[in-house]
């Protein structure tokens, strides 16, 4: 049975991908194996006691396709900056959507980040089984949510 956060994250990812990136994905099981994805975008929800890290890893092919959809251009017109910027925006919207459904005023949304990852990459969220998703049967990406307890400084929670 899916944990509450898993279902919430699935709902949010589906809504964001369908509404802004015109892509419908299906969630499935990967059996805990690490799939080879090329990009990771991440966003944190923060409060004074810790942070919730949401990481999204996607294949380059899927990233290029959703970026083209998002910007309304052909895939061959998508450059690396567009791709990374769109993936950051994807993380931003997923984080915001998760925050909205969590409905807890104590949490603040951080600024998203994105980077290219290699096959040997191990993220801090490695210990949590990822939620894998596919696009027309092909592995497209995975998502993982992890809670990291520990004091978070005010300057991180309250921008400016």
């Amino acid at each position, binding site marked *: 049975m899916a944990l509450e956060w898993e279902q919430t994250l699935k709902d949010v990812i589906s809504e964001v991908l369908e509404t802004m990136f015109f892509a419908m994905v299906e969630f499935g099981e990967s059996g805990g194996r690490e799939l080879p994805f090329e990009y990771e975008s991440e966003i944190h929800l923060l409060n004074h006691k810790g942070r919730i890290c949401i990481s999204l890893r996607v294949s380059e092919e899927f990233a290029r396709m959703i970026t083209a959809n998002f910007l*309304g251009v052909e895939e061959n017109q998508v450059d690396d900056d567009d791709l990374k910027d769109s993936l950051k*925006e994807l993380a*931003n919207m997923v984080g915001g959507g998760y*925050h*909205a459904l969590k409905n807890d005023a104590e949490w603040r949304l951080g*600024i998203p980040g994105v980077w290219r990852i290699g096959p040997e990459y191990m993220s801090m969220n490695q210990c949590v089984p990822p939620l894998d998703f596919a696009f027309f049967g092909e592995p497209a990406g995975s998502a993982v949510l992890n809670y990291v307890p520990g004091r978070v400084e005010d300057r991180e929670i309250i921008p400016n």
Partner: protein
Amino acid sequence: MSYNVLIVDDSKSMRKVMLKTLQLSGFELGECLEASNGQEALDILDGRWIDLILSDVHMPVMDGIGFIRSLREQDICRDTPVVFVTTEANQDRLKQLMDLGASGYIRKPFRPEDIRALLNRIMGETNGFRMGTDVEGCDF
């Protein structure tokens, strides 16, 4: 009549999407300016006529709350509608934006018709403005 718009967002992609959404919504665009944060927006606005500002909330350097606070405190573009397009979910923060003088906000992810409906209301109130209603098949 065309409208000068300032789009404030640290994401270049999001600025492109906002612009495309306005164009596809039948919004008569005049000059469209872009800024990547609140401070850059304030610099651009200095002495320039803008009819509508669309802004993100979460931005580095100066966020949306700092931006609208400065805008209203410095009496820049006093009557210019400011609409926030944001992932912000905290109702207190959204109320704060409205209290500081925002004309409205739209949560991301959004549909083009959401933007159109809000701008019809806001710009209609200020300029007797009405956007086209046919956005079916828009490919943005």
